[in-house]
């Protein structure tokens, strides 16, 4: 395994230590170290990495702000000294949570949680896409889902949840992979964790939209595109 990564951390000694852990592991190539979210975002807008080591509290913006704004879904390992962020970490589907300072062994344990094929999970869980439908593998069956029945698709780490008006289907896949497979006419990615059916939006607010009563966040990176696709008069 050789993954590219960046370190987003405002404490120099912590960044140096993390950098050394990455080098020592022989599994990671550090593409950059950023002390604040805007610099990291500028880099991520023009570079793709497999993994981000991300501090939470930094000057100006938090690590979660970065996750809201990033346009794709690399794996994320949070590095913080506050265990209170564990719940948010879970909500953002991060791979692991390292409490500073952590040992090298704990660092290696976190790396082990990254699936070997994480950036390219393509297990054909979506086996066929047509203009108006897709087939997904769920519960050992191939299930046809008509585009018009799908409300949204939500990331659950290495799995995704297809939500229809009647049922939810969980299958092994990633939002990143599905973004390429679903009909671009009907669907669009609005957040690193969500692809939505455009026709199902009932209303939009400042940073979120509602589908069937469920509030779905819109990241800053996707907001302009969302507004462009809507028939606003």
């Amino acid at each position, binding site marked *: 395994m050789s993954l590219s990564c960046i370190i987003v951390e405002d*404490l120099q*000694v*912590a960044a140096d*230590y993390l950098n050394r852990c990455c080098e020592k592991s022989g599994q990671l190539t550090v593409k950059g170290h950023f002390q604040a979210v805007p610099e990291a975002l500028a880099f991520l807008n023009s570079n793709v990495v497999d993994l981000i080591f991300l501090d939470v*509290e930094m000057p100006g913006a938090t690590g979660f702000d970065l996750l809201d704004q990033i346009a794709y879904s690399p794996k994320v390992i949070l590095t913080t*000294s*506050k265990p209170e962020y564990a719940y948010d970490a879970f909500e953002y589907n991060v791979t692991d949570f390292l409490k*500073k300072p952590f040992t090298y062994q704990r660092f290696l344990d976190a790396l082990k949680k990254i699936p070997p094929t994480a950036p390219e999970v393509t297990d054909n869980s979506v086996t066929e896409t047509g203009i108006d439908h897709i087939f997904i593998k769920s519960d050992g069956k191939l299930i046809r889902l008509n585009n018009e029945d799908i409300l949204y698709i939500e990331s659950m780490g290495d799995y995704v949840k297809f939500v229809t008006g009647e049922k939810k289907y969980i299958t092994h896949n990633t939002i990143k992979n599905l973004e390429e497979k679903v009909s671009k006419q009907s669907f669009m990615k609005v957040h690193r964790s969500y692809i939505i059916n455009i026709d199902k939006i009932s209303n939009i607010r400042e940073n979120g939209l509602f589908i069937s009563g469920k509030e779905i966040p819109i990241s800053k990176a996707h907001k302009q595109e969302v507004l462009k696709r809507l028939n606003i008069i």
Partner: protein
Amino acid sequence: MGSETLPNQFIFNEKMDKDTLYGLYTDDFPYIEEIFATTLQHFDADFGAVQLAFEQENIEDLKRAVHKIKPTFGFVGLLETQACCKKFEDDCSRASSFTQLTNEYTNIKNMLLEAKDIIQSEYLRLKAFNASLL
């Protein structure tokens, strides 16, 4: 056992938790020297942010600055200092007025300055120790 000195073994200041240091760096003393050096290079700026926030009576900035400097002490084995930073950070979260923080601030400020002295002196000792092994 505790007072015995093994050859090529550095004995850290008693306020530094040696289990933490060995857990993080094993016995890579040149690397620990680097860690201490990096910590000292950035200490004044990070501590300055704490002082500035206090002088400006800005509780949010004070909390943020203490939060930032806090893990530094974990990396150099000063666990008591790290714990005091955590407590002060919590105090900042709970404080309804700035005056409630004045006494605690004096304590934390003294503790941070003492921590810097310890890191500085251990850095110099460690530097000499590493040089003696060359």
